């Protein structure tokens, strides 16, 4: 699915990345804890989060996250928007809560970047 369709499904506002809406996305990860995002999110996924500080963008940059969707109608901080512009990571906002955001995307074919964590994490 194109990021443009994600924007339409979520009735989202585009803060950064108007020129990147043709990007293809297939998977997503949702969490407010960047610690968990770092542990579980896969490259090329959407990040759905309620966190609005610049570390959301830093974390996404490190992980090669495709685009960030800020949920629950929260507004990203200005530093967050500026950093997303600098690092060219699309930043969108939706008024849907995290559960609804995930559900609406799933219903349209976006799946989790992993289904569930392994019983025992692989540290090899």
């Amino acid at each position, binding site marked *: 699915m194109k990021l443009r369709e994600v924007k339409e499904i979520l009735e989202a506002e585009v803060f950064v990345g108007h020129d990147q809406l043709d990007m293809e996305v297939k998977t997503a990860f949702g969490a407010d804890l*960047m610690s968990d995002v770092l542990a579980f999110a896969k490259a090329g996924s959407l990040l759905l989060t309620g966190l609005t500080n610049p570390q959301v963008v830093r974390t996404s940059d490190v992980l090669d996250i495709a685009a960030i969707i800020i949920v629950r109608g929260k507004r990203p901080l200005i530093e967050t928007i500026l950093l997303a512009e600098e690092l060219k990571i699309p930043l969108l906002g939706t008024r849907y809560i995290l559960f609804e955001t995930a559900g609406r995307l799933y219903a349209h074919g976006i799946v989790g970047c992993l289904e569930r964590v392994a019983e025992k994490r692989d540290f090899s």
Partner: protein
Amino acid sequence: MTFHETVPYENSFLVEGKTFENAGHVSRQVKTLLQKMKFSKEVVRRAAIVTYEAEINICSYAERGKIVLRVTPKQINIEATDEGQGIADIELAMEEGYSTATPKIVHMGFGAGMGLSNIKRFSDEFHITSEVGKGTHLEMVIRT
């Protein structure tokens, strides 16, 4: 810039402690450097993740720290040394979910007790030593 002009490569970066203002600057620089050296996306991503986790730890817990990047054609070595509170029980600190994070750290989205175990997971080799009241030393190796 070609691979042979840049590798072996060594550089060190200072990290300001007890503030998140610049958290992520070093890992961004490391990522840019490794991308220019034409390492695979996977290798660059793993190096960026372990550097970022180490950087977040310094920003969270230490007074100040230093991250040294050494690159040879076969491996990327990242060393993080800090002057800080140190870790009393390393085995416990390595456990997922164990954390001594302050509300400020949690407010930034970190401190879930995943950092060290995540560093271990994304490194090919990981060594940690620490002395309470002095600081912590991490060494991560990523084979290319």
